[in-house]
């Protein structure tokens, strides 16, 4: 009986915190009573429901813990979610009391480690997606967006995941790629395919250029300087009006062509539809863009996977594990770090080039810090160093908010709760294990506890 009083107190405390948190979020509302003035109104009912739900959920969670808590590992999960439940309140708590969640987490872990089956499956899904009957064109468009972030994630994964260098300014290279194509096409009439390699090379050059000053920096200091570089690029783009168009951006960037065939609504000779004698349809261009980015992303993945099995890739991972030991083995730290920056930046440049051809219009607002943060979150959420993890994380980070569009204001709330839940259940990301790059016998998967996260 004593126990239930303690539980009651505990639940009341949690409900009180929920009241403080939800008070301003749910309890208050701005109205514009049709006169143009904003007035503040209260929603006590909604607030009461939220707090009440938190109270009940916490009480049930504690009760469940008392009843079944002793025997299994799910207790740890309940306790954890209990702690974090303070912040994310009713939903996570409600979820925590559902008994199948612990096995579900286990299942998820097993699923995530079985890259052998998941990777081909994902590839098949990705390749066939535009042909699924009855699939709305907007989903293919969303696929293009997700794939762009998968590619950015894979690019940044080289720097953060493999080399262990925390880069908060990755968007700079994305911007360099995008503006390179936009400016070359505007001023010299270059096409997408001509510009693609140039964008990659220029972004890589910027990667090396920005990499030089930060060679000696590590950890938090490196993060701050790279963050500043990202901002410098954005500010230069914004303020150098004569060159980049400043805040007005650049319009009329050409769309990619297929061996010279344009994707035009008008049809006729010289267009894709005209050449193959089919009815022009906007979906043709979307599908084409989809396959371009799929190809670029797969190229990124392929190069990374090959590099991992090579001296350079191993040197990156060794750098993440121990810089001093690397030096004692005769590894040139400067070159190793710069190649990581350059190759990561190159793929960022490719993605930027694709971004500007897809949008047809770019301006500096597309290259703010939030982009760097999103890409870094994808890498961290996926599990630094894991290619497959980045895929899942990009789907979660980009796909879920887009699919939840109908939920309007609650979208970000649910999204936030989902992210916290994932990080509680899997603190080192979806796939935190590491597969050896070479082995004598059957390769053994290395647990996350062994693998260093890198100190930059």
């Amino acid at each position, binding site marked *: 009986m004593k126990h239930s009083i303690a539980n009651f107190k505990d639940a009341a405390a949690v409900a009180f915190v929920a009241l403080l948190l939800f008070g301003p979020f749910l309890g208050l509302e701005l109205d514009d009573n049709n006169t143009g003035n904003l007035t503040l109104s209260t929603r006590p009912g909604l607030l009461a429901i939220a707090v009440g739900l938190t109270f009940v959920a916490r009480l049930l969670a504690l009760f469940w813990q008392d009843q079944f808590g002793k025997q299994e590992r799910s207790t740890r999960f309940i306790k954890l979610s209990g702690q974090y439940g303070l912040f994310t309140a009713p939903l996570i708590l409600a979820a925590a009391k559902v008994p199948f969640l612990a096995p579900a987490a286990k299942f998820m872990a097993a699923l995530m480690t079985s890259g052998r089956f998941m990777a081909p499956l994902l590839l098949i899904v990705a390749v066939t997606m535009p042909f699924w009957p009855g699939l709305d064109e907007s989903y293919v468009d969303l696929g293009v967006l997700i794939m762009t972030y998968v590619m950015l994630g894979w690019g940044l994964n080289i720097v953060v995941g493999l080399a262990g260098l925390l880069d908060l300014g990755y968007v700079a290279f994305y911007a360099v790629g995008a503006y390179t194509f936009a400016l070359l096409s505007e001023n010299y009439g270059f096409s997408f395919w001509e510009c693609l390699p140039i964008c990659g090379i220029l972004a890589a050059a910027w990667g090396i250029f920005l990499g030089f000053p930060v060679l000696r920096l590590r950890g938090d200091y490196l993060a701050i300087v790279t963050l500043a570089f990202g901002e410098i690029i954005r500010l230069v783009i914004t303020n150098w009006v004569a060159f980049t168009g400043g805040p007005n951006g650049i319009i009329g960037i050409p769309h990619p062509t297929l061996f010279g065939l344009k994707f035009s609504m008008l049809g006729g000779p010289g267009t894709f539809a005209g050449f193959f004698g089919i009815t022009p349809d906007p979906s043709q261009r979307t599908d084409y863009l989809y396959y371009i980015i799929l190809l670029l992303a797969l190229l990124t993945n392929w*190069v990374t996977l*090959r*590099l991992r099995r*090579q*001296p*350079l890739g*191993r*040197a990156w*991972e*060794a750098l*993440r*594990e*121990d810089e*001093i*030991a*690397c*030096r*004692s*083995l*005769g*590894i*040139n*730290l400067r070159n190793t770090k710069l*190649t990581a920056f350059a190759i990561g930046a190159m793929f960022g440049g490719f993605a930027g080039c694709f971004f500007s051809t897809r949008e047809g219009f770019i301006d500096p607002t597309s290259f703010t810090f939030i982009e760097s943060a999103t890409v870094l979150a994808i890498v961290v959420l996926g599990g630094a160093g894991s290619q497959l993890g980045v895929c899942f994380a990009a789907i979660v980070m980009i796909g879920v908010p887009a699919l939840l569009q109908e939920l309007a204001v609650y979208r970000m709330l649910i999204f936030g709760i989902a992210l916290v839940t994932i990080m509680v259940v899997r603190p080192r990301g979806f796939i935190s294990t*590491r597969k*050896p*790059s*070479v*082995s*004598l*016998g*059957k*390769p*053994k998967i*290395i*647990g996350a506890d*062994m*693998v*260093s996260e890198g100190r930059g």
Partner: protein
Amino acid sequence: MTDTLLTVSNLTMRFGGLTAVNAVGFTAKRGDITAVIGPNGAGKTTLFNCITGFYKPSEGSIEIAHADGTKMLLNKLPGHSIAKKGKVARTFQNIRLFSGMTVLENLMVAQHNELQASTGFGVLAILGLGRYRAAEKAAIERAKFWLNATNLTDRADDPAGSLPYGAQRRLEIARAMCTGPVLLCLDEPAAGLNPRESAALNDLLLQIRADGCSLLLIEHDMGVVMKISDHIIVLDHGKKIADGTPEFIRNDATVISAYLGEGDDDDPDAPIAETHEAAETAP
């Protein structure tokens, strides 16, 4: 096999007002095991860090003479070239392995420079062309040789961080040997090993010497030092106080008062026990 390999002359290392190594000079012969001993804080590890390029000495020079007659000033080489061109490898007092990588991967990383040269700037190897495949095969063979020598073959695919302490020490030596050095610098290789492991270490070091690699070794364990060293240098307060064969050092009055202690000559371990307690500052 009696020519000079390493010549350290007038080596001085100052940290602000502190002179950690003061005008130390010695030579190490090719094919010898040269030991550097002395009390904690005598400047042994600083000396090592100067030789292996982790510190740039304030004064003096370190010269290595390779068998083909080329001579190099190690204090003028950039840090990573000491292992690459100078062919000097080292281990660390506090073990520094790539713990998230497998034992085999650790040995492959050590062969980075040779392997990288065969990848055609990475491009050819990505495309699966060139001679990288053959080079990798050779590197694995070399790794297997050292795995065998250090008795780690059955742990090859385990993460280095999961090995027991003694095995980690052996792996660090194997990793250093995979860089193909002419001089291997060992910073307290026997620290924390039990007597049986220590004896096995002696055998390993003697085998390395027999294979043609000279050794420079910091060690407190006199059982190891007196048994296998050909030449001993004693440091105290940054200065060299003695230099000679094990017999000479054992009977040297200055060394006995500074380090070995006025104990029973037949039991040199006894007075040294206390020096094991405190760890020296690592690089």
